[in-house]
Structures are given as structure tokens and as C-alpha cells.
């Protein structure tokens, strides 16, 4: 991960251990909760878009051509007079959905491969690790474009190809976490008590691996949303339907930027804030739970 701290991080001098450590909600801090609130609003608007009193996103001449923002037309209008605010909200639906499905696929596949290979070690582990290295060496964006073009640019295949990209990083973290815990006494105790491998993995390992992984899930969701936007920006995304990447690509031409930069700036700002909040929330969880293994 690009933004992880070095293992040699030194605590700031003012962080003296307290006798009564504050609750986890307090430790996460105000910024974390502001981020979560912003994300909640974005998700709510996306889910409720069909029932909200919005202009039809595809309806033309709602405003004047390239009209600036005004009450009722908060983000202004684009070259066809369509409502940019409504386009941004409807566009968030595909971006968020793809992000969610992709990260779910990445976690289910990568997580289980990582845990199982870290737990059993041996030949299986070697093969899985080699697959991870190969996936990490394959130019990621080219792989995503390739799969999407070959299998069809539907929401499912776009999510699946982005999920495939998440498998290796997620799997490596899950494996590293498993290696840390597999040596611990409580695993040995469970084994002595006669627990099966399956039971140890599900009941003992999984709960310990999940928290550091949840930080990665938020960061990964941000990455997946950006990746979907990138595909759409390159002209390879869901055929029908709106997405932030498509919207920004359409507004990013010299002509539109010269006449009405707001058509591009509003969706860019919303996308940027969404990714920023995901990154920040993930970062806070990682710091609070001190999951330094993320850097492995």
C-alpha cells in the first residue's frame, strides 16, 4: 500500500499512554465520523435517487446550455441543458455499486486464499504466493481493460475484473495476518482441544484477521471507485447508464472546459471527497487498531 507508515514509526511525543484509554469511538476522532457521515449521505442519495425529487438525469433542456449553478439547479447544466446535480447523483450509483461488488469479490477470493495458504503452508502456499506475485506484476489497468473488453462491459464483468485486481493485495495481507496468529498460543490451545482445521480457521483466525482487513476494505473501495472511473474515462465502461468517470470524461474536453468548467468541477469534487473520506476512514481504523501488517 502506498500510504502506509514505516514499521519504524515513532509515536508523537505528546501521546503518553493514558490510565483510562478513551473509547474506540473517541480514538477514531472527529475527522473519522465526519468522513463516515459524508459517505453515508453519498450512499443514501445514491440509493434513494429514484424516489428523490430530482430532475430526470437524461432529460435535456432542464436548464439553459452550460447554465451556471443556481437554486434548484445546484450544479448548473451541461451542454445539453441536463441537470449536473442529478447526473452526479445518478452517476454515483454505478460507481459505488462497482466499488462494492469488486471489493467483495476481492475479499472473498483473496481473503480465503490468503488465510488457507497461510494456515496450511507447504506447496499450496508456494503456488498461491506465486499467483499473487504474477497478478501484481501484470499491468493492472491493462488487465482490467482486457477482461472488460473481452467479456462485455456490464456492471458484473467490470466489477469482476476490478475484483480480480484486489485478490493479490488482499490475499497477501490475509496471509501475513494468518502467519502472525497461527503461531499464537490460543491457536495451539484450540488444536490441542481437538478443534478441526476448518473450525480453527473460521472461529479463531477469521475474527482476528477481519479488523485489519476492514481498513483495507475502505481503502480498496476507494481504489475500486477510482478504477471504475478510470475505465469509464478511457471509454470502456457500462454501455448504458451514467457514471462519474463517463461524466468527467464528457466534461473534460477543451470546448466544455472553456465554456463551462463547472460541468467537470462538480463531479470531480464529489468523487474526490468520496475517495478522500474512504481513505481517511480506512487510515484511522488502521492507526487505531495498529495494523502495521498492512505494509506487508
Amino acid at each position, binding site marked *: 500500500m*502506498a*500510504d502506509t507508515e514505516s514499521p519504524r514509526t*515513532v509515536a508523537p511525543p505528546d501521546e503518553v499512554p493514558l490510565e483510562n484509554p478513551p473509547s474506540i469511538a473517541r480514538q477514531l476522532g472527529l475527522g473519522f465520523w465526519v468522513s463516515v457521515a459524508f459517505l453515508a449521505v453519498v450512499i443514501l442519495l445514491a440509493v434513494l435517487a429514484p424516489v428523490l425529487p430530482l430532475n430526470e438525469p437524461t432529460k435535456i433542456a432542464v436548464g439553459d446550455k452550460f447554465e451556471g449553478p443556481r437554486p434548484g439547479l445546484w450544479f448548473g447544466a451541461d451542454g445539453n441543458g441536463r441537470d449536473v446535480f442529478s447526473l452526479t447523483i445518478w452517476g454515483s450509483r454505478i460507481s459505488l455499486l462497482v466499488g462494492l461488488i469488486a471489493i467483495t469479490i476481492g475479499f472473498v477470493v483473496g481473503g480465503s486464499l490468503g488465510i488457507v495458504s497461510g494456515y496450511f503452508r507447504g506447496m499450496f502456499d508456494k503456488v498461491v504466493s506465486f499467483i499473487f506475485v504474477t497478478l501484481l*506484476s501484470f499491468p*493492472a489497468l*491493462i488487465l482490467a481493460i482486457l*477482461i472488460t473488453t473481452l467479456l462485455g462491459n456490464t456492471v458484473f464483468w467490470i466489477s469482476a475484473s476490478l475484483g480480480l485486481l484486489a485478490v493479490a493485495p488482499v490475499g497477501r495481507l490475509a496471509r501475513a495476518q494468518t502467519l502472525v496468529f497461527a503461531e499464537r498460543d490460543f491457536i495451539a490451545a484450540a488444536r490441542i482441544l481437538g478443534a478441526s482445521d476448518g473450525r480453527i480457521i473460521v472461529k479463531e483466525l477469521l475474527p482476528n484477521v477481519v479488523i485489519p482487513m476492514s481498513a483495507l476494505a475502505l481503502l480498496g473501495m476507494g481504489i475500486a471507485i477510482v478504477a471504475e472511473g478510470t475505465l469509464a474515462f478511457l471509454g470502456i465502461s457500462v454501455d448504458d447508464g451514467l457514471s462519474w468517470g463517463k461524466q468527467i470524461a464528457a466534461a473534460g474536453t477543451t470546448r466544455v472546459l472553456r465554456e463551462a468548467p463547472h460541468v467537470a468541477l462538480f463531479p470531480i469534487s464529489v468523487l474526490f471527497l468520496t475517495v*478522500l473520506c474512504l481513505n481517511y476512514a480506512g487510515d484511522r481504523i488502521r492507526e487505531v487498531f495498529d495494523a502495521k501488517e498492512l505494509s506487508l
Partner: protein
Amino acid sequence: MSARVIASRLAQMVLVVVAVTMLAFGSMNFLGDPLCNIIGPICSEDSGEEFAEVRAEARAQYHLDDSLPVRYGRWLGDMATGDFGRSFENGTKVSTTLSNKLPITITLMVYAQILAVLVSIPWAVWSASRAYRAVDKASTVVSFGMLGIPVFALSVLLFWLFAVKWDIFPTRYEDATFGAQLKSLFLPALSLAVPLIATYQRLLRTDLISTLQEDFIAVARAKGLSNRRVLFRHALRPSMFSMLTVFGIQTGALIGGSLIVERYFSIPGIGAEVVEAIIRDDFPTVLAVVVVVTVIFVVVNFIVDLLYGFLDPRVQLDG
């Protein structure tokens, strides 16, 4: 690094590159149909007898009746001798396309890395020597924000500000002279560099802060060396491990980023070329780019491994 370790690293590199080629070759042949990519919709058996000859000819020319492993072996062998095949689209040699376009992309990537290093090192030194003060905290917020902005959105933003609004940089790619090329590549390179700057600054700052607490820094200060000399001559080199590690990994991000900025800024490099090639199902071109790009990535990371020993001779790598 002992010769044995280098040999085992090299062997692993070759294995990874071979695995990548198998993945790329396999996915194109399993998920797509090469015959249709070569001759278009008449590839189907029921598109009429009159095309049967065209089909047979194309099959023979591209050896499509051979089994997949045989074709893969032939392709790999050709590749090893520098023959990347011909484009399905217009029959031009893929090696010609590569030699025309690769230098532009490499210039762009090196440009971005130079910008990133030039900005991030002084910034990290500056903020580490003011660690945990208000200015340092503010600069941490700035670099965190820089990490969150997608390359494609940043490209649009920079293009709008510096090419459209203020007209400082050209809106079209020009490479009549090297100076003109550097000028047209500045905005794309900066779009690629911004997330790198933030990544390097964060890692280097953290490592510098912990280095600055070590005894040899106290000794250097006690000798009366200037603050600048302590920071740049004594503290910087042993603090560069994390930054160097991601330097290699970020090459991968740069490759992906070059697809975006080359397409958006209409730069005729291999990034834009590969997107086009995938869209028009030109598999020889796609395969060649995948191989070249993967080799670059793997080699850069190998060099990074070698550099560890240079930064700190105590470092021993295991195979």
C-alpha cells in the same frame, strides 16, 4: 548480495514474466476468438461458403489450427528473437510501433519520477525537521489530499487551469524540438507525479523522523555541523528504504497512469496505443505491450533490490 541470491531472484523474475505471458496469451485465446479479430464478422462458419477460402487462408497464415500450447510456444519463441508479430489491424510490424512509441512513454514516466523526487525529498526533509509542529501537520493534510485525487480527475483539472484557462501549456502534443516535447509533457507528467509526491513525502518524512532520533545524528550535531548538512548528508540516505521500496512498486502505477494521461492529452505513446489496440482487438500489439511493460516493472523492482545494499551495506537479502 551474493551471486546465489541474485541468481535465484533472476530465476523468479523469468518465471513471473513467463506466467504473465501465459495469462495474457491464454485470456485472449479463451475469452476471445483470434480468427474473428483478424478477419471480422465473416469468421463464423455459417457466414457463407464464399468466405470459406478467406477463413482457411487466415487460419493457415496465423497457424490457428495448431493447439494452444504449440501456438503459445511459437509466439514466445518469436518474441525471444525480437519478432513481435504484425498488427491484426494494418499489418505493420509491432516492433516498429514499439520502437516509435515506447521512448515517448519512457520519457513521460522518467519525467514524472524526476518531478516527484525533486519535490518530495526537500518537502519531506522540511517537514521532518519541523515534526509535529503546526506547519508539519498542515503539510501532512495537504499530502493526504494529494493521495486521494484520481489521476484522470487531476488531468482534467490541470488541463483546465494551465492549458485552457491560463494558456501556459499547449492543448496539443508537440514534439518538434525536445524543449517543446518537455513542455507538452509537463502537465501529463505532473498529473502522474502528484500522487507519487504525496506517497514519497509521507514515507520519507516518517523514516527521517525516526532517523533523526538516532545517536549518530546527535554526534553529527555535537560536532557542530550545520542543520542542512546533518539533514541532507547524514540523515537522508539511511532514511530512504521505504521510499525506495515503493519507488519500484509505483512504476506499476505509472504504467497504468500513462494509459490515462496519454489518451487524455493525445500523446502518441504505448499507453494510448494499448488502449486502442484492446478496443480494436489487435492482440499481437496488446501482447507485446504487456510483455514489455511487465519486463520494465520486474527489472525496476530488481534494481531497487540491488540498491538496498548500496544504501546500507549491512542489508542482507535472502533468496
